[in-house]
């Protein structure tokens, strides 16, 4: 018994010693005065202390015990209170570290206990939460809403609502998640990754699922239990959330690329480079030679034999950029020239990390300018509804985006590009009101979903890749995109 006490004392001292270092390594909020490009608020993690979600769960605060009701946010979020039906998987994030797959992953990576490893806990719990036992609650309140050291007391004071969102973030470390830009940037911290929260290819090879984040898909997942009610009506909410998601996801991916490139610059660096987790998975992970001519009626914008960089978050961003002025009044079409240059530079199997780091830094600045614009537009209040026709317009643009100008071939046959265009179309279809509103889209959208779905093996194995997705399947996908292209013209037959 005494031995156990000694051990726990040692562990506690070690943890206490480690804590300050951890908080120092966090990314600072960046109201960078020297930089001419504006930055959105809510980037990275605020440098304040996390506190346990338990302090949010008082009955009079957010633990009201009424499923889905205002004042019952914590009760709705926590899996234990209402165990039936859909749940919030964030509440299970810690427990999952004990399952067989996590343990095997740990073994392959040389991690004895994933539930004690910062690499895992930075996302699977609230990083740095006090007391450490609170980590067991999973990805709790503070992970998304910001460390509550400063705002816990302040947010119930009368003056709180008078603060601007930027103040709430910069002074208190509170993430104003009602602002979609701040919200999705916060999600992207784990779901895309950043300097301290990273799923690289080593982890994926050991068994971690790949990250492929698209905000509206997560938001409207039937398995997800919301602990809040969205104020913006459809279709405005979903159209704007999709567009912000495109910008924020690519921003996070680009910043992560910059971080990885920086680490790889020293010639003797052992850091992975190129980092495969930032490349298109199924460019490589496919059985080769099943088709005599695997490409079918498809093309790729990349040289042969090169896996695309972040095809997932690049494929449809152009559509969001071109049409964002219609979804967000007063936001003009962003300049993404450096983003395009970066994509070009990444079309090498081993691009020079120094050049990549420099260009990625400029690309991040471009995306930040865009995101800051979107954020300001939202904060000004979006009383103006989006144009009636915008879901159709965006759907048409996405269908066109997936095809070559002559529509004879797919523009990019990479599965990630196809899936990204499909998810955008799915969001527009859902936002528009589904089969009752736009019956002509239903069949091709459902067909696309079937074609792009990962199959189940003959022995019940779960494929985590589009096994058997070849020329014939690509041609069918092309035909569905063509059908959607035709179904989404306006009554005059125009885009």
């Amino acid at each position, binding site marked *: 018994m005494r031995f156990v006490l000694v051990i726990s004392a040692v562990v506690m001292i070690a943890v206490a010693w480690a804590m300050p270092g951890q908080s120092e390594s966090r990314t600072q909020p960046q109201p960078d005065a020297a930089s001419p490009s504006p930055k959105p608020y809510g980037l990275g993690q605020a440098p304040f202390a996390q506190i346990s979600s338990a302090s949010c769960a008082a009955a009079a605060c957010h633990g009201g015990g009424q499923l889905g009701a205002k004042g019952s946010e914590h009760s709705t979020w926590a899996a234990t209170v209402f165990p039936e039906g859909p749940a919030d998987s964030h509440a299970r994030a810690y427990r999952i570290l004990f399952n067989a*797959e996590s343990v*095997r*992953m740990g073994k*392959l*990576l040389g991690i004895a206990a994933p539930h004690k490893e910062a690499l895992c806990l930075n996302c699977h719990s609230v990083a740095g939460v006090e007391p450490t036992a609170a980590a067991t609650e999973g990805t709790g309140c503070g992970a998304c809403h910001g460390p509550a050291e400063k705002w816990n007391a302040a947010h119930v004071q009368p003056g709180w609502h008078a603060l601007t969102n930027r103040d709430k973030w910069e002074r208190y470390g509170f993430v104003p998640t009602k602002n979609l830009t701040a919200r999705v940037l916060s999600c992207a911290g784990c779901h895309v990754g950043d300097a301290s929260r990273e799923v*690289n*290819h*080593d*982890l*994926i*090879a*050991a*068994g971690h699922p790949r990250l492929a984040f698209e905000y509206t898909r997560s938001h409207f997942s039937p398995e997800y239990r919301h602990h809040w009610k969205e104020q913006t009506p459809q279709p405005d909410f979903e159209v704007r959330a999709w567009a912000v998601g495109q910008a924020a996801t690519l921003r996070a991916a680009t910043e992560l690329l910059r971080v990885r490139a920086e680490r790889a610059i020293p*010639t*003797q*660096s*052992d*850091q*992975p*480079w*190129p*980092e*495969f987790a930032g490349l298109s*998975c199924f460019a*490589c*992970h*496919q*059985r*080769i*030679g*099943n*088709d*005599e*001519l695997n*490409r079918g009626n498809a093309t790729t914008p990349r*040289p*042969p*034999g*090169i896996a695309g960089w972040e095809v997932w978050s690049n494929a449809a961003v152009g559509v969001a950029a071109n049409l964002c002025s219609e979804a967000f009044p007063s936001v003009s079409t962003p300049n993404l020239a450096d983003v395009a240059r970066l994509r070009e530079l990444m079309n*090498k*199997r*081993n691009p*020079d990390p120094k050049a990549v780091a420099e260009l990625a830094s400029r690309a991040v600045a471009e995306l930040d300018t865009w995101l800051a614009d979107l954020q300001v537009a939202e904060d000004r209040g979006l009383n103006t509804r989006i144009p009636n026709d915008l879901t159709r317009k965006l759907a048409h643009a996405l269908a066109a985006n997936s095809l070559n100008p002559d529509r004879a071939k797919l523009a990019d046959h990479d599965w990630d590009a196809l899936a990204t265009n499909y998810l955008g179309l799915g969001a527009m279809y859902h936002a528009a009101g589904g089969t009752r509103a736009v019956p002509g889209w239903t069949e091709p959208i459902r067909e696309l979903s079937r074609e792009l779905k990962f199959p189940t*093996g003959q022995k019940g*194995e*779960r*494929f*985590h*890749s589009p*096994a*058997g997705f070849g020329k014939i399947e690509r041609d069918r996908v092309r035909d569905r995109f063509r059908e959607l292209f035709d179904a989404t013209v306006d009554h005059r037959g125009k885009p």
Partner: protein
Amino acid sequence: MTRFSQRVQLLAALILLTTTVIVSVRGGTSANQTNPKSQPEPNNKNPLIPKGPDDLISYSPACVDCHGRTPDDVKNSRFTKDYRSDEFVLLTESRTWEESDPHSRSFKVLKEPLARRMAEILKYDVTKSAKCLTCHGIDKYAGLPLPEGDFDLAKRFETVGTIDVDPPGVTCNVCHGLRKSWQSEHYNPVKGTIPWRTLAPDKKKEAGMRNLRHPVVKAQLCVSCHVGNAAEGKVVTHEMYAAGHPPLPPFELTSYMEGEPKHWAYPTDPRLKFFASVPAADRWKLFHFNDAKDESYLSRNFAVGAVVALRAEAELLLADAKTAENGGEGLDFARFDCYACHHDLKYPSDRQKRGYDGPPGRPTLRAAPGLIAGIVAKHGEGVETTDLAKTATGFHDKWIALREAVALRKAATGFHDKWLALRKAATARPFGHPTKVKEAAMAVIDWCDNFLAILGNSPSSLYTIEQAKRLRELLAEAATSASIADPEAAMLLAWGYTTLAREAGVQLPADRLKTLADTVPLSVRAEPYTVEQKPAPIQFGTRMKMLSGYQADPFRQAFEGLLK
């Protein structure tokens, strides 16, 4: 063997073990040394390189005059009648090559649909690009040497320009020597004989003829295309594969020798009576073989081929690592195991169950070259010194044989660690740590050079009948003791074992071979061709299925069946 001679050998072995510490083993092996370290020679000193356009022979009807006879017509040849040339060469060489050797089609394939599609994707003309022509159509730009050392394409184009008719691909001269200088000399009769035949290999080389009877020279030439050679501009890159280049089959010299429609015969072939008449002392010196009862000709070639192929692979890695160090793109994907990346992802995953060499998620080098070179090394380490001396006659030769055996054992050691270090360096970062890969590749190359210095130069019978048997046993053991996960490695084991077993006269029942052939193809080219039938175009799908359809357990079981 008498007890006395056993004692003599034992004593000699003891003396030798002591002396080798002091005396450099490789110092005085043979006058006719081939030192792989010296490759490539500078162009101006390499006698195989034409001195200029005038010094070059292209595909020449002159060869066909003598070497293009039908089998029935050989006896009517003037050279058969006057100089018994049919006892030295076959005289049907050009015909065999033209009718049934895929090398004769190597340029033509660049105009077939597969190549046309590749050109479309790669955005360059595959019938004109040096990237293709260095292997596929070396004669297209006559006036140019088979590029060695510094390969200068611009010069090639400038000097000669194009020929309108299709060049015939990898012709006689591409392999045997491109210079005119040896052409008339090699059949020049002097006083009723042809002195060229017994000319020392060095002299033949000086005249511009490549000494293809030498296993190292031969293997190096083959692997320059069939594995690759960066200095000669012969590399099949991942970009080419992605555009549709069929996968290069893994390289194993004797299977390639046996698989190609033979326009030659081994010096141990009874048809070539000339070689039997060469005095024993000159057999190695002039033609690099030993009597079939003393040494397995193919086993020696197998060992040399395995080490030369590994060396070529290490050279490619070294070249890539050097470019990476200088800011270039570095290690090409083609240097890595295709199936490390190219597989469908699923749970549960076999790979995660099996575990990884190094960190998970790093592509590993191709396993095949290291596997068979490793077997050759293991064999070399375990060579019985006394066994090698058995075939030697006389105290001096026995002493040499013992010395060679000790040197062989010594040179063979350390392979495993060096190969492992190279594999580790290749996974230190996802596509290899340039400096570590460079150093590890150099260590592997050094090992190969030391080992080849003996295999390529020792006149002693290193692969005696007993040692050849041991080599086959080691191949069989590797194929059956553990599951071979890599299809290329499985092919090499199957090819090597069956080729060497056939030479030794081991019975391989047809039904069991058929079972094995259902798991891996038993010939280098999946596409059928025979002497009678012109080679079929490569069937890309078939060739890919050989690889993607491979399963480890059925292979092991079929191999076990073959051994029963």
